[in-house]
């Protein structure tokens, strides 16, 4: 049975979607991620979609669902690497990817997650706005 591999980077899970996403595969990914979050106690999930040449409403829904489920399990999700053509199409399609935070690259995503987590631990308010890079509490040297 085909599965999308999930990598563990500290307390962050990294998923890189490299294949043409079939609906069943997408559903399996949702399940696998939830299991892994609980199993590893991960606090962050980075989903790299740089290899996806389209994101339709089903895939969009999958991403939103993963973000919601992860949040319930105390993990933040960031989707990274969206291609310009995909972004433009999503705008035209009217899909807003509610509840999904995004970042340009895996690196940006990790930075975002660390910052969000740090803010949470210190008790600072975190800009919990989806689809916006918000490195709250990030020290100046980080750039």
């Amino acid at each position: 049975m085909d599965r999308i591999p999930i990598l563990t980077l500290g307390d962050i899970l990294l998923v890189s979607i490299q294949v043409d996403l079939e609906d069943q595969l997408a559903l399996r990914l949702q399940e696998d991620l939830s299991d892994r979050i609980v199993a590893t106690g991960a606090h962050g999930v980075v989903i790299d979609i740089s290899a996806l040449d389209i994101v339709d409403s089903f895939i969009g829904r999958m991403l939103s669902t993963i973000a919601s489920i992860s949040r319930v399990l105390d993990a933040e999700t960031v989707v990274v690497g969206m291609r310009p053509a995909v972004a433009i199409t999503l705008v035209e399609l009217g899909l807003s990817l509610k509840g999904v935070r995004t970042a340009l690259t895996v690196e940006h995503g990790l930075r975002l997650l660390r910052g969000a987590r740090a803010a949470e631990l210190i008790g600072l308010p975190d800009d919990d706005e989806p689809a916006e890079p918000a490195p709250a509490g990030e020290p100046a040297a980080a750039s």
Partner: protein
Amino acid sequence: MDSTTTRYLADLLRDHGDQIVKRWTATVAASLRGRLGEAELGRQINELFTALREATDGAELTIDSAESSELRAVLTELSRQRARHGFSSTETAISVFALKEPVLEITDSTDPAALRSFVAISHFIDELGLFTFESYAKTREELIADQAEQLLELSTPVVKLWEGVVAVPLVGTLDSARAQVVMERLLQTLVDTGSPYAIIDITGVPAVDTQVAQHILKTVVAARLMGADCIISGIRPQIAQTIVALGIEFGDIVTKSSLADALLHALRAGGVELSRRAGRRD
């Protein structure tokens, strides 16, 4: 062209081939005034001649027939070449019309049947000329479109202002087509430079209407989906008034009147702190 005339032409081309090609080439050469090498021109006319002979293989000669496919191909290629090298439409069409001269010379002008055949042949050559002209026009249009695109590219520079901050100064009127190109370039730059912040400066945009505002808005939303944020700067007082009058809502998109302010905002958002060293006099 009916079958009898087609046979007549086929025979003519076969029996007087060399003479026809020679006169044809000379006439065209004269009109081009040496701007095309003799050898190259000779080769082109020969190719055209051969294709024409092939076209007469069919029962009735028409420009659309299967036998004329090579002829159409050769004419198209000839037009494209002429168009690309800056020859005028007349110079291109003459390459075809010049065939009439040698054919007329060979025609026995005392024979009414021969003259009727010449009229039919002349008519056919006219069609070839028009076909050539069409291909030429099409190529010129393609060239102009290409140049317009290049101009578009040149007029939308992207500047890296800081690590993670790029600026796109828009200059000139922003129509639908241009806005699309700008949008795509901006978004691609975000990926290429890994910049989470883009400043769209519209100081150089004379007027902003609903359409333009829509495009800018779409660009910002797309950038956000990708994980980057846009700041719009260079909003002049008149533009601000127009925006409000048109009821355009920029929502939570940050807008600044100057590029400097926009840069400061982006730097701060990115966690960069600026300080002035003590003891400096400015």
